[in-house]
């Protein structure tokens, strides 16, 4: 009996979420646990004159209060080699502020008490005295001479410059019939998962092993980072992933608190628990996206794209965190998108400001780059009197031109069919009809617009994943993987792959992604990589078992059939799968892959209030191969919903003193069912040759084109003159009303 699960819309088991038994980190308790409360900076930039903990320490129930003086001078390291430069180590964050605070929310002290309410009370009594300093709060001027320095000893607010160049840019601009140039700005916003971060650390007094519950995303790297910072062996640290209430890129990176809570548990010899509150979350957990671009595009009169130049300033916040220079690198890698440029030059700068550090949020860099490029393409189409769809049709890379490389840059498109995908999106939307509807509504006085965007997305980042398939005593198998689950259903998808490859029913496979002690290495759940990397590693682990069976049966591996828990040779001789020991697989992926997608939006503006309402929204993505189309659609729709929030509602605002103005869910407006349409998802399946399963990933894709498509739709609704002035996100009612007024 064979089982075919790959490509099937298997429903996941979500009963623990429906009966309340799901166990998030806040739900884990250990005997004798203490509660930590972090004292954070209330000012954006200041010299710390004194931190007086005496009164806090004297409060009932308080066990200890630590400050920078109590912890070694360590820094949180960078996770990805590609995101590190020789200079980045100068800007890394200490777990507790040393002498200077650089953003509102920076940890200064930690109070530990026997009760969470008492810990919070006592934290209020830590007496902080500051000598306040000027703040840097503008990305464009941050790196200019004479600006206050965030880290004075480095002599600069410039973390890194990412240059990318392809072709003869000057020559291409010289040949152009038309050149358009503008500033475009993407605002600060972030993931805001419904569960805040949280940790619980305990040291086993017998073995000395430190267990940290509350891990996510990149457990193995966080273990490595903690090992270095705490000075204890990796084998003495175990990170456990519980149910995770959403991640979207921000949860699970190593943060100051990961170190502090582990440090306190080691120091106190008692379990220590910390659950971030929502106000903390808004200043402590990574922000994302804020950047300004100076973009110039050159084209011919008949709408052939020739070249672009982009200079950008990308906010890193006050420190470089574990994701290094990704805030500047990823926009650069995505700026060309799916078009046949003859030349381009990109120069993105990662700069420091006195604000919460920046990391990655679903669709990082690509969402920003897509907004900048696609907005300018619409402007260009308008100047050339072309339908924006026609402009893109004339310039998308043809399928016969793949693989396409912008050498010497690392940007390579290996597979897909961009024009076919784009046409499919327009067909599904009924583009011609939609335009007629738009025009009819306009004739009735409504303010409606259509917009779209095409993009490329990097995914499947390596370097590798391993998988172990271990027989269970009951005849089933446990498959250990190094990726994580953030609520997207990856356990189900990986079980489908493992079960099909092993020839057993899905019920016989348990996916274990919870514990770093079960697998030597793992790189985690980011960059839409979990299914690609861990899925292929599982397929290889199943192959390993087939190879073992072949050796036992004395036949070539290709002749062995796995089914019904048996490995069978053509002769009929068989051996039980459970008798073959462990299967092990490792899938290496030295190069990331790019995939194609597009989004289309129909919006209406309320001219009275300036409110943008998304009436229809479609997203299309080439996922290579859909292992579970149903779960994949939900990922694309969910990401698009976040993209709608990013485009018209959400913004992390600061005042001129670096004080955050969006620290409540009441200030930071996320979309509810009232603001969202039923998102239409189109899955393209054009398998990639870059991995045996052919998958490209899709966890972030619904986000990438969404803000750009909405912005273009709003510009379309506003009409030529006002639309051309649309240069920044989000399109909140006040900004839209401003655009509605004559210039």
């Amino acid at each position, binding site marked *: 009996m064979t089982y075919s699960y790959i490509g099937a819309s298997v*429903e996941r088991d*979500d*009963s*623990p*979420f*429906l*009966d*309340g*038994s*799901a*166990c*998030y980190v*806040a*739900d884990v308790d250990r005997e004798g646990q203490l509660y930590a409360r972090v004292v954070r900076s209330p000012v954006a930039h200041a010299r710390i004159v004194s931190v007086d903990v005496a009164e806090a320490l004297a409060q009932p129930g308080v066990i200890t209060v630590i400050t920078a003086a109590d912890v070694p001078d360590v820094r949180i390291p960078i996770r990805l080699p590609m995101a590190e430069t020789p200079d980045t180590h100068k800007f890394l964050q200490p777990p507790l502020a040393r002498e200077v605070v650089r953003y509102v929310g920076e940890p200064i002290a930690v109070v530990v008490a026997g009760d969470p*309410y*008492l810990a919070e009370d006592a934290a209020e009594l830590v007496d902080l005295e500051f000598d306040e300093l000027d703040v840097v709060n503008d990305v464009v001027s941050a790196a200019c001479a004479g600006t206050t320095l965030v880290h004075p000893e480095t002599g600069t607010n410039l973390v890194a410059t990412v240059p990318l160049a392809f072709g003869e840019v000057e020559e291409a601009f010289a040949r152009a019939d038309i050149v358009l140039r503008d500033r475009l700005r993407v605002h600060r916003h972030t*993931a*805001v*998962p*419904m*569960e*805040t971060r949280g940790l619980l650390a305990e040291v086993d007094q017998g073995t000395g092993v430190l267990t940290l519950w509350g891990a996510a995303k990149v457990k193995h790297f966080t273990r490595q980072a903690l090992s270095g910072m705490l000075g204890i062996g990796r084998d003495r640290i175990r990170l456990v992933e519980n*149910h*995770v*209430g*959403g991640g*979207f890129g921000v949860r699970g990176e190593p943060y100051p608190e990961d170190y502090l809570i582990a440090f306190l548990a080691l120091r106190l010899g008692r379990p220590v628990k910390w*659950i971030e*509150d*929502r*106000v903390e979350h808004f200043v402590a957990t990574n922000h994302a996206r804020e950047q300004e671009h100076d973009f110039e595009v050159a084209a011919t009169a008949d709408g052939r794209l020739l070249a672009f130049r982009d200079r950008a300033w990308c906010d890193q916040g006050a420190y470089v965190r574990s994701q290094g220079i990704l805030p500047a690198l990823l926009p650069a890698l995505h700026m060309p998108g799916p078009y046949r440029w003859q030349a381009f030059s990109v120069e993105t700068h990662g700069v420091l400001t006195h604000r919460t550090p920046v990391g990655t949020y679903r669709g990082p860099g690509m969402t920003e780059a897509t907004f900048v490029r696609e907005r300018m393409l619409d402007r260009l189409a308008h100047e050339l009197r072309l339908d924006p769809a026609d402009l893109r049709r004339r310039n998308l890379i043809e399928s016969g031109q793949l693989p396409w490389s912008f050498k010497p840059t690392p940007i390579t498109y290996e597979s897909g069919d961009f024009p076919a995908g784009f046409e499919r999106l327009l067909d599904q939307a009924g583009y011609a009809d939609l335009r007629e509807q738009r025009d009819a509504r306009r004739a009735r006085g409504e303010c409606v617009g259509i917009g779209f965007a095409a993009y490329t997305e990097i995914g499947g980042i390596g370097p590798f994943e391993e998988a172990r398939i271990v027989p269970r005593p009951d005849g089933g198998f446990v498959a250990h993987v190094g990726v994580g689950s*953030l*609520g*997207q*259903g990856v356990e189900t998808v990986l079980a489908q792959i493992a079960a099909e490859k092993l020839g057993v029913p899905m019920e016989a496979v348990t996916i274990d992604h919870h514990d770093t002690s079960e697998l030597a290495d793992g790189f985690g759940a980011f960059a839409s990589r979990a299914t690609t990397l861990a899925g292929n590693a599982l397929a290889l682990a199943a192959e390993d078992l087939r190879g073992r069976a072949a050796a036992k049966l004395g036949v070539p591996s290709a002749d062995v059939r796995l089914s019904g828990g048996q490995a069978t040779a053509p002769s009929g001789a068989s051996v039980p799968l459970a008798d073959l020991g462990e299967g092990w697989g490792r899938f290496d992926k030295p190069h990331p892959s790019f995939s194609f997608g597009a989004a289309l939006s129909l919006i209406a503006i309320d001219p009275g209030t300036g409110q943008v309402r998304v009436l229809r929204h479609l997203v299309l993505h080439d996922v290579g191969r859909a292992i579970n189309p*149903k779960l994949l659609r*939900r990922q694309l*729709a*969910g990401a*698009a*919903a*976040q993209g*709608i929030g990013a485009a018209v509602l959400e913004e992390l605002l600061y005042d001129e003193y670096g004080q955050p103005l969006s620290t*409540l*869910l*009441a200030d930071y407006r*996320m*979309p*509810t*069912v*009232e*603001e*969202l*349409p*039923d*998102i239409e998802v189109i899955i393209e399946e054009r398998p990639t040759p870059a991995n045996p399963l052919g998958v490209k990933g899709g966890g972030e894709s619904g986000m990438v084109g969404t803000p750009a498509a909405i912005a273009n739709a709003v510009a379309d609704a506003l009409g030529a003159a006002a639309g051309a002035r649309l240069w920044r996100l989000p399109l909140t009612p006040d900004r839209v009303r401003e655009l509605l007024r004559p210039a």
Partner: protein
Amino acid sequence: MTYADHRADHHSGPQTRDSWLEPDDRAQFDLVVNDQPVHVRAPARCTLADALRQQGLIGTRLGCEQGSCGACTVLLDGQPIRSCLTLAVQAEGCTLETVEQAPPSRELHALRRAFHQHGALQCGFCTSGFLMLAVGLLRDEPDATPERVREVLSANLCRCTGGVPILRAVLAAQQELTGGDR
């Protein structure tokens, strides 16, 4: 009356002294949770959400503790409330329903199934609150229009699905509960 007035009042006369609790004074009181009597001993300032969670009812989640996200929604005497904004002592003598209810009410049963079938959850953190919000709605207003259901569901936040699948699930459960005559 403001908090300060309360304090002044308390210190002004001996009559009120007995009934006044300092924030950390423990109160003892009885609740009925999911049809079971529960005796609670909690500080006066303990929120209902924390008190329930300390009873092991961890299905009531805390997403903001500011009354914005609704993950902590439970039913108090049949009405959906934010248990993060309610003090445990305020629930004295009240009947509470949480997501753990077993056997589930007919509304909760139908909603659980519909949530599963319609992909109304991903990470699941907001799910308990949405389920209880919807139980309250479908019990109180069994014939609520889709517009009304949408309006009520916008009280809570879901970051993974955006909420449209939740709307679809609640409408499906409503149809099942009303025998499909809508």
